[in-house]
């Protein structure tokens, strides 16, 4: 993620982070408020277009989709069968006939499109925004203690992930991936995770001392200030806000967009 964020040169990379942040908030609200599947599909296509405009790899996006798809299915899979609607297909299970209903299928597709729209835009934001800009955004939007924890851990997330992956690779290279019973496997992974926590605490203590010796006074200095969004950035956010207002009005007050 940081590689693409720091080295990319696309139009999305050049976009003001405030504009991208505001658009993310609007995409989240649109995904939550919009009910029409066609409109949600349009939102999803728009986020895909945004991702592509950032010249980010599609293969990577498919990999990132595994988790949200898994979570949506975990929560909603039974609704495919239990949601009242016209049966599309049925199977007999333990002497009982269960059917996939059209409403159940529609529900799970809608939930998937909602989740993937937000994930796609969120990844686009994080993969096209440099750390220094992210630090500025976070320090301006979150309460200071939370911003400090966020920024400190943001820097060490990738390093820690690499460190743990290296240990797991080392275990695998020594035939540690062979199944030798649940107890032995559990004990081995507990050792890896325990060691990671011990290292993390030792590193945290060193970092704290280093920060204090450099005069840390509760707030990280910002090395780079962010300029205001451009006029085109304001225009883009304004358009998105208008779309959000229309969708909200249509859902809660009077239907403006159900004409198709």
């Amino acid at each position: 993620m940081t590689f693409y964020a720091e080295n990319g040169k696309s139009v999305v990379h050049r976009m003001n982070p405030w504009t991208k942040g505001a658009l993310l908030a609007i995409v989240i609200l649109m995904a939550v408020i919009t009910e029409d599947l066609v409109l949600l599909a349009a939102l999803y296509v728009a986020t895909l277009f945004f991702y592509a405009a950032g010249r980010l790899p599609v293969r990577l996006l498919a990999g990132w989709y595994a988790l949200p798809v898994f979570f949506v299915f975990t929560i909603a899979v039974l609704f495919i069968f239990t949601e009242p609607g016209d049966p599309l297909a049925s199977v007999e299970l333990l002497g009982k006939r269960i059917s996939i209903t059209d409403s159940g299928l529609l529900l799970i597709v809608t939930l998937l499109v909602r989740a993937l729209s937000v994930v796609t835009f969120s990844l686009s934001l994080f993969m096209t925004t440099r750390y220094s800009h992210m630090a500025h955004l976070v320090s301006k939007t979150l309460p200071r203690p939370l911003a400090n924890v966020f920024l400190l851990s943001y820097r060490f997330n990738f390093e820690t992930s690499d460190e743990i992956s290296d240990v797991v690779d080392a275990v695998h290279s020594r035939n540690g991936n062979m199944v030798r019973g649940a107890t032995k496997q559990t004990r081995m992974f507990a050792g890896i995770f325990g060691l990671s926590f011990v290292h993390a605490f030792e590193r945290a203590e060193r970092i704290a001392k280093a920060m204090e010796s450099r005069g840390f006074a509760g707030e990280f200095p910002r090395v780079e200030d962010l300029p205001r969004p451009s006029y085109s950035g304001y225009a883009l956010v304004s358009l998105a806000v208008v779309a959000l207002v229309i969708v909200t009005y249509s859902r809660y007050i009077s239907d403006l967009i159900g004409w198709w």
Partner: protein
Amino acid sequence: MAHVHLEDGAFTIEWVALWTLIAAALIAVALYRLGGYSIPTRKLAIAAMCVAVGFAIFQIEIPIFGGVHINLTPLIGILVGPSLGSLAVLVINMFGAAIGHGGWGMIGANSIVNIAEVFLGYLIYRHLRTSWNASRFFSAFSATAVALTVSAVLALVIISISGIQGSTQGEEETFANLLIMAAANIATGLVEAVVTGYIVSFIGKVRPDLLETAEGQRKIEPTDSHQEAEPVV
């Protein structure tokens, strides 16, 4: 997974707002208990490293029972206490939302479930260690098992009363639909409980001082006054 994270769009905006407000209140209490804006640097760094390790560990699959992912939120509670642990799980949820491991709008609901895990993990472990003098493995195992069971039920209750957006089913039907998910989470939680038991035993051997938050500082009783006066080199 030991617990399920909700994705954006699962709840209506009213429920998203409600759970966000409740989570914000819990975080405000945690911040207040930590001293507001004057949290010591060491605590900040420890919370940040817990986030980094917690976030990294959930990406690793343990090859038992077909592959299990764990989050170790009760362990975070045992190591750093409920207040700092609450901040840590909130930030883990923010990072998770960035990559689709839970939604941005669902950070509130997901954090409430995780804060319950952190809080119960710490409280039960502390009680078992200090009042019952139970072993580290047993205390950590029990604390994690209970915390994850309660959090699975809590997640079930949150989803049932909020309702899945777009579904026409009521609270009871939604509850029934999600019972299998909760049962699977509780079963996986038992694996996480065993792992946490081993981790705490391991940490207790190599760095017992890291468990002082939950266990309290052990007093070394001097055998006689002569030994007490003599400095140990």
